[in-house]
């Protein structure tokens, strides 16, 4: 309470010198526009029969939604979205924690090794997807095919047999380094004296990890989960350049379904309804993220 009163007094005092409105407006006004206008238009489109190939556009109420929710591709897409997010998240947290602990150690050349582990996060999505698809996973000349063939295991047609898993591997390759970066930074702020004291008391490395390191990482892990979820919910480029959502709908997620409906089938109304479903899904996650960040502001 005292804090609020103080800052209120401060703004009143300095209010004479600095009016914050004009300072905030250039940021806030465009953002308000960006946050509400396009979304409102999408909502409106989703209630229309609106096809770019059909000159007649008219109001149809919730028809697009009822069509969408009877279309099996929506449920395939929802499932693929959730599976992709879930799989990559598990990989990120498990490997991210292991890597963070590993690269927190001092060893010869550890600072260069750290950079190497983080590097994939800076590779643009289209590059990583195409390099994996061609140079590594391609079933005839790819490196993986060569390795499995040399070991006498036969050849896997990655994108034909396991399209969603293959995309998941590529996406995980980009996001595990992100988790490592965040968790490594968090571990390095761990109280060294506490660790030393536990070691003196004879704590084993495993119990140190579970009772000291992991509790310290609880909040950073929560942050990683939520930030990655936001980005992973809108994976698009990786699917576009590898499988085009196929075979069939096997690797179509929600964003890709909307893209297909709207920009390839020209059904703006149906695509908008799918977009609204994506927004609702993202908002559920966003609420949790905002709570976590709000706590860190105090």
């Amino acid at each position: 309470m005292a804090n609020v009163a103080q800052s209120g007094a401060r703004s009143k005092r300095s209010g004479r010198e600095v009016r914050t409105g004009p300072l905030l407006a250039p940021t806030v006004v465009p953002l308000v526009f960006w946050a509400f206008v396009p979304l409102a238009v999408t909502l409106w489109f989703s209630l229309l029969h609106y096809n770019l190939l059909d000159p007649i556009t008219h109001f149809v109420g919730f028809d697009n939604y009822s069509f969408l929710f009877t279309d099996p591709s929506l449920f395939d897409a929802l499932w693929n979205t959730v599976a992709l997010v879930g799989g990559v998240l598990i990989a990120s947290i498990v490997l991210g924690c292991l890597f963070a602990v590993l690269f927190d150690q001092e060893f010869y050349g550890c600072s260069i090794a750290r950079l190497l582990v983080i590097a994939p996060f800076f590779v643009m999505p289209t590059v990583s997807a195409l390099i994996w698809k061609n140079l590594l996973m391609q079933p005839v000349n790819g490196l993986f095919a060569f390795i499995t063939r040399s070991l006498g295991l036969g050849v896997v047609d990655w994108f034909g047999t396991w399209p969603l898993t293959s995309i998941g591997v590529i996406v995980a390759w980009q996001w595990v380094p992100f988790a490592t970066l965040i968790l490594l930074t968090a571990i390095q702020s761990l109280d060294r004296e506490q660790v030393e004291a536990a070691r003196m008391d004879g704590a084993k490395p495993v119990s140190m990890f579970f009772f000291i390191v992991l509790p310290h990482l609880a909040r950073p892990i929560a942050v990683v989960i939520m930030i990655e979820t936001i980005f992973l919910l809108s994976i698009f480029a990786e699917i576009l350049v590898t499988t085009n959502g196929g075979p069939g709908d096997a690797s179509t997620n929600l964003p890709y379904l909307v893209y297909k409906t709207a920009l390839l089938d020209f059904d703006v109304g149906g695509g908008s309804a799918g977009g609204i479903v994506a927004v609702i899904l993202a908002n559920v996650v966003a609420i949790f993220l905002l709570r976590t960040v709000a706590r860190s502001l105090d």
Partner: protein
Amino acid sequence: MRPKTKRKIGMTFVGWFVALLVAFPIFWMTLAAFKTEIGAVATPPELFFWPTLENFAEVRSRADYPVFAMNSIVISVTATFFAIVIALPAAYAMAFHPSRHTKDLLLWMLSTKMMPAIGVLLPIYLAYRELHLLDTVSGLIIIYILMNLPIVAWMIYSFFRDVPKEILEASRIDGAKPWQQVTMLLVPLALPGIASTALLSIILCWNEAFWSINLTATQARPLTAFIASFSSPEGLFWAKLSAASLLAIAPIVVLGFMTQRQLVRGLTFGAVK
């Protein structure tokens, strides 16, 4: 002393093994960029070969690579510049003249980042078609400014908060006007922070692949969208794909290395420092 050294050597092995494994696709791509087309698809794969620069020459001359690279540079730098200029006053106001609503304002700005792009693609696409902004550099710049404004404002705000209030107070008593405080004290003091904010924003713009693919066709294509075009039969030219990819990621990987720590702060909205 002995067991400690032994442990360190063991760690060195494990650490480097993991690091090289994770970074392997990047090495493999780099190798392929210097192979001939025939060498790049050879089985068993070529490990020792006479490196050639012909792919880079080819990519540069035939694929209009310089045009796309220029688009990427112009778009990222311009969008970043405007985002910072627009966000600076807001960050100053929130950091030094906070009100009851500052926290809500920050959180609301953050929440605009959470709207999935796919939810607003159609109105933007159709509006851009009417306004003749499709496939233009300025069209993408506008989107990227809006996309990065919350992160940029948030980061500069957190760097301003690190500047001791006493310094500003002292300068105010000495008779400095608010705009003098900002230009002569605050910006120079927070310059390293502002620089890393700029780097983060450039990285995010450079690697953005949703709007760039959907809103550009030929003229305004940045590198993300250009590389995406290799998914067609052109992708069969692995050496050229690798050379183009290497050129596209090299500058940004270096920038990323330079700004790691501030990156953590920006990407987690200050929740992890």
